[in-house]
């Protein structure tokens, strides 16, 4: 169906300032974790840990700072499509480079 151009009149209450401070604090905390983890000798796992933490941080920025939490499924799908595309590009490239 074509879109009702008035649906953005569904005004949710504006997000409180406090939410953003909590978000920021979580990000700073995670940064501290990742810097600390880099100092530990985790070997091969260190990449995975670093990427996991970075992904969580990015997710927090997307979800809260960029309001993805309040947007509908279309925007979620958009991001998933692009991440999937990147994963495929990198993954399929590895079928070459990892086996030479």
């Amino acid at each position, binding site marked *: *169906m*074509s879109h009702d151009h008035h649906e953005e009149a569904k005004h949710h209450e504006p997000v409180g300032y406090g939410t953003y401070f909590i978000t920021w604090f979580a990000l700073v905390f995670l940064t501290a974790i990742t810097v600390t983890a880099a100092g530990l000798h985790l070997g091969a796992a260190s990449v995975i840990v670093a990427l996991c933490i970075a992904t969580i941080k990015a997710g927090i920025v997307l979800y809260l700072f960029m309001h993805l939490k309040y947007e509908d499924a*279309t925007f979620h799908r958009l991001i998933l*499509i692009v991440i999937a595309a990147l994963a*495929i*590009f990198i993954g399929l*490239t590895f079928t*070459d480079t990892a086996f030479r």
Partner: protein
Amino acid sequence: MAVYPRHDDHEHVSAPDANEVDFYHYQGRWSGLASWIFSTDHKRIGLMYLTLMLSFFLVGMSLGFLMRLELIAPGRTIVDAQTYNVFFTLHGVIMIFLFVIPGLSASLGNFILPIMIGAKDVQFPRINLLSWWLFLTGAVLAVTALFTGGGPPDTGWTFYAPYSIRTGTNITLAAFAVFVLGFSSILTGLNFVTTIHRMRAPGMGFFRMPLFVWAVYATGWLQVVATPVIGITLVLIMVERSFGIGVFDPVKGGDPILYQHLFWIYSHPAVYIMILPALGAISDIISVHARRTIFGYSFIAMSSIAIALFGSIVWAHHMFVSGNSLVANFVFSLLTMIVAIPSAVKVFNWVATLYKGSIQLETPMLYALAFIFIFMIGGFSGMMIGVLAVDVHVHDTYFIVAHFHYILFGGLGFSLFASLHHWFPKMFGRMYHQVPSKIAWFLTFIGFNVLYGPMFILGWEGMPRRYYDYLPQFQLWHVVSTVGSWIMIAGILTMIINLVHSIKHGKVCKEPNPWGGGRTLEWTVPSPPPLENFREIPVVNRGPYDLEPSESK
């Protein structure tokens, strides 16, 4: 009266006569040339794209003509080897980046898409104009690259490292030009995807959109997701040339094959950017000129999405002999087989539409029928070279050249020619002269096959591509091919002269539905349309190719 919101930030005041006269005669803020190059009207932008693209096509075609002339005999015929390298590089760059990639999307898409979905314009009209200006800028930069720096690029349009890093010719500027063109393409894709999501007329769900719209939609996604990859690849070439970072330089540990991966991650989806709108247009054209609703509408619609999806994961089939691992070659060969399926779905459905249709052999239908024949040959040859065992022998031979010309030129080219004739009365309010159009079609079709058919044989027998000289045993088919180029060029020139002449001197044709069989929304507005296309936004209550409820018996 319903107020139709205009979807841009800039609030717009309609002049009283906005919908009384056709868009050519609408008097806006500017006049003369300025009324075109500063216009945000999608119809004018589409025509400006068309004008530039056809001009570049003629330049590219002239280069092709010269290349064929050089190849009519072994050894030097008209130019030396370095110049020949420049010729095929420019032929590729111009045809691909300045003609085929904007293609049907930027030209016909711009003109027809909003009308087809019942909208007054695209979602972001000013960005639409910016896209056109970026296109022009990129083209000017590309031309400048010919005459500055170390001279025109000689790497082939693919700019493969490490030669593109080392050559003294003006790669940096050429790469930057293509970067700008890529940005233009991204903005167009972004604009069209958003337009299709937000501006469809009431009642037009996704499965009531015309198939051309589905095709442009899938193309838009490819433009948005794939084009940035070539953007960064070109930046990396420029940075490598300027600063020597080493990512593609074996001396510094870099891997030139990674360049090829990055390049083809875009450039393979790019060929689907080129062909998808062409396939969509053919669906519409066949339906109108066979006077039938399209057979298998939802399958054709979904096949456009499937082509976009599968086409994004097959890129390394361009690299089978570059040094890939065997694992990669297996994987990509298998994936390549899959991508043929949705294209076949389309062809089956077109043929089924024609069956028991009331076929009108108007010029658009002639080009469409020729398209099906030529596209099939291109597609089959693609299946062949997707097989590893075959590609090892024919890669970088004329077999490949034949394949992609059949698909691209026969595909996009013939579809563009069909579309130009099909929507001609809508765009110009006149009908083209019929007899010259059919003569042109005949010459083009015959010439095309005489030009490119022998290339399959040449490639199979081992004639390498991009070679300026060759062994005498190849000469026969080269001569045939060159003669074919003359016939084809005669046909194309006849077509273009005919169409250009008909713009001012063709029979006047102002009815909304001159073909009679048109059922999509663009056939409900005057020819040419007024500025805002519709007096009132229509409400859609049937499928795009169905008859009105009152008309069906």
